[in-house]
């Protein structure tokens, strides 16, 4: 056990803190605009600032514009980003998912074409994995890719289908997308298992065959989109990892999703809790022992999340593979956040139930936490089957 940083890590943190103090919310960043589009542009501008400072891709290798930071430094980055009150960069999907996936699976041409514009936010990304009938079930993907000319293996792919939960699609240049390619020539191979025959594509969003429609959430915000594809065209050169390997490639992407974010999210949770404690102290509800018992429980959970994030990092560093922390953390985080916003109603009072307040928004928004990125039910099943090794449900 050693819960201290090395002098190098401390120096990294201090450099980052100094930079964030100058460029972040306490410095030149400015307030987030209310308007959806302006807010996006504001976060894109923030990404450009990060990029110029060399902070957009801390965990990316130096040769592709990153900082080559270690896992611990990456964790420090996200923790400090959250602590400073800064937003995530606009294209977090490109930085955390698309980039690393391309570095693992993309060929040279793909890496040369696609990587350079990610950190700078010159081209941003969205993700086309989920479908209406395949919420948590990859094998049920129905979107279909066929060859424009079945007899020409170099011909373009034509993709048709529907994707959901694609955030940022209205601004994205590229979409990382999984579609069913069957036997590789557009046909379905009879008897093939359903997660076979999937291929990972990089789709150019700038074409008429791609229709982006906003999907309004219960909060009233169109945070996500639906994507309707009708013979959308992808050249053979934009297949990543080979035809039929989509399942494997996509899993890499999904594995990357949570690592860095866990640190950002736990700090944000702690900040929300601190805000709630401040309100409780101000209006006297912290003197209600039942309220303060619940606040203490939230403290405990939030601290456990912080420690689990570090423990997960140690597991990767020491043993080369993540521990069970990923799914545990996702589940515990979403539940804790939901408990927190619900307690806020009891602490804050009427304001927390008004539509235009931050607490009111968070109350509704938090209901999505246990659904997005894999439902809590799915997380529990993953823990049971993959961590505890229980037999698969039949």
């Amino acid at each position, binding site marked *: 056990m050693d819960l201290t940083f090395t002098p190098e890590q401390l120096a990294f943190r201090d450099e980052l803190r100094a930079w964030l103090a100058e460029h972040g919310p306490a410095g030149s960043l400015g307030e987030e605009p209310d308007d959806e589009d302006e807010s996006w542009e504001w976060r894109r501008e923030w990404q450009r600032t990060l990029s110029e400072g060399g902070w957009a891709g801390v965990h990316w290798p130096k040769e592709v514009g990153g900082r080559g930071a270690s896992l611990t430094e990456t964790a420090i980055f996200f923790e400090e980003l959250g602590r400073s009150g800064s937003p995530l960069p606009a294209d977090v999907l490109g930085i955390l998912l698309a980039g690393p996936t391309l570095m693992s699976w993309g060929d040279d041409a793909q890496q040369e074409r696609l990587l350079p514009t990610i950190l700078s936010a010159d081209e941003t990304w969205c993700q086309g994995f989920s479908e209406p009938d395949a919420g948590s079930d990859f094998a049920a993907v129905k979107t279909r890719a066929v060859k424009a000319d079945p007899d020409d293996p170099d011909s373009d792919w034509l993709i048709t289908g529907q994707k959901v939960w694609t955030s940022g699609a209205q601004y994205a240049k590229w979409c990382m997308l999984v579609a069913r390619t069957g036997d590789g020539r557009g046909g379905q191979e009879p008897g093939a298992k359903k997660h076979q025959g999937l291929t990972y594509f990089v789709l150019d969003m700038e074409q008429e065959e791609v229709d982006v429609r906003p999907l309004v959430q219960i909060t009233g915000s169109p945070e996500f989109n639906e994507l309707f594809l009708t013979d959308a065209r992808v050249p053979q050169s934009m297949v990543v990892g080979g035809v039929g390997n989509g399942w494997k490639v996509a899993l890499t992407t999904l594995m990357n999703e949570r690592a860095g974010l866990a640190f950002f999210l736990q700090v944000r949770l702690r900040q929300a809790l601190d805000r709630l404690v401040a309100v409780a102290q101000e209006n006297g509800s912290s003197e209600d022992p039942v309220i303060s018992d619940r606040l203490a429980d939230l403290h405990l959970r939030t601290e456990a999340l912080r420690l689990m994030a570090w423990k997960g990092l140690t597991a990767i560093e020491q043993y080369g593979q993540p521990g069970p922390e990923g799914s545990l953390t996702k589940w515990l985080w979403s539940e804790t956040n939901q408990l927190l916003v619900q307690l806020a109603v009891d602490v804050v009072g009427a304001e927390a*139930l008004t539509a235009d307040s931050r607490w009111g928004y968070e109350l*509704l928004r938090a209901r999505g936490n246990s659904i997005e990125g894999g439902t809590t039910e799915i997380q529990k099943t993953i823990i049971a089957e993959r961590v505890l090794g229980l037999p698969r449900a039949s």
Partner: protein
Amino acid sequence: MRFDLSEDQQEIQRAARDLLGGRATFAQLRTVVAEKDAEPTGMPDLSRTPGEDAALTAELAELGWTGIAIPEEHGGQGLGLVELCAITEELGYAVAAVPYLGTVTAALVVQHEGTEDQRGDWLPHLASGQLRGATTYTGDRVPVPGATDAALLLVGDPHGGPAALYAPGAGIAEDAEAVDPTRGHGRIPIPELDPEEELNPRGEWLGGTPTPSGAGFDRAAVVVAAELVGVVQRALDMTVAYVKERRQFGVPVGSFQAVQHGAAQMLRDVAMARVLTYNAAWTADALSAAEDEGERARLAAELPVAAAMAKAAASDAGRTVTAAAVQLHGGIGFTWEADVHWLLKRAQVDAALLGGAGHHRRRIATRTSSVPVPEPTADEPATD
């Protein structure tokens, strides 16, 4: 001993469900909310309250629903709290965009705690639906449904202190956009009512002088609980229907044990809220009907506990059951397009209205130690 609505009561509830099934659909609700959200063109229509279904509101008044539990001498139908709960449950089930809850709770408070004059002044207008009302506690814990400046406001003390009545136009209520957009909410930011201080010029003490209050507010809380029972029953019904149809991994998601057990938990929470709510409503009606002095005293002591249990259970169920409904709907449940969120939002407001679960558990704790086990007694005076 019959723990079930009587034939007549069932008839009333069935009629309400039939009417609202046609008139208060989610499609209609969306129209009302969309009108409210539309950009104003020209002069705003001051005669309409945003987020309310004006036609349905008028229709309920015509049908006499607003006056169902108001005595006939004041223009009502003179029925009991059980009947009022049966109707309110259906309005919750439909998430109807009408200012009903505020009006009927205000009437209950005036009726059971007001002076003869106050009853005569206000009950006929509330009964006819001409006047809307709203009921809340001091402390501004919740945007209050029906609380516009045009409403009769009843403001109680959560700890049973004196309560106040504010005539329309008192300027007490502030407009508020509640998370539930379906009926006019207002905030009533009165931190406390001090018997030593003078009230707002359009305010007066409920009952004429600053005296402890409770009997009306307890009944009002039971009616809010009944609305919650309707909301959570709907959440359960919609969820059950959805998970029977929706398929994943090749089978209906309703065949997964996690979904099955989640739905079972919802039913349990609904069932607990339901029995406690109707028990409290019946206790109130029995109290109103009791002639024997000892019987009255016993029921009067039982009512606050019964009401607190009803509201505590219904508030908890309101939060947990509607959250579970969103969860068991999966991704679609988190969209505006699905209708479960109307239930979630209504439940969140009602759960806090007239005291949340924590508040009512405190009341239970302080009272139960001195109250004997409730025990059924004769419907006629016992012979011994």
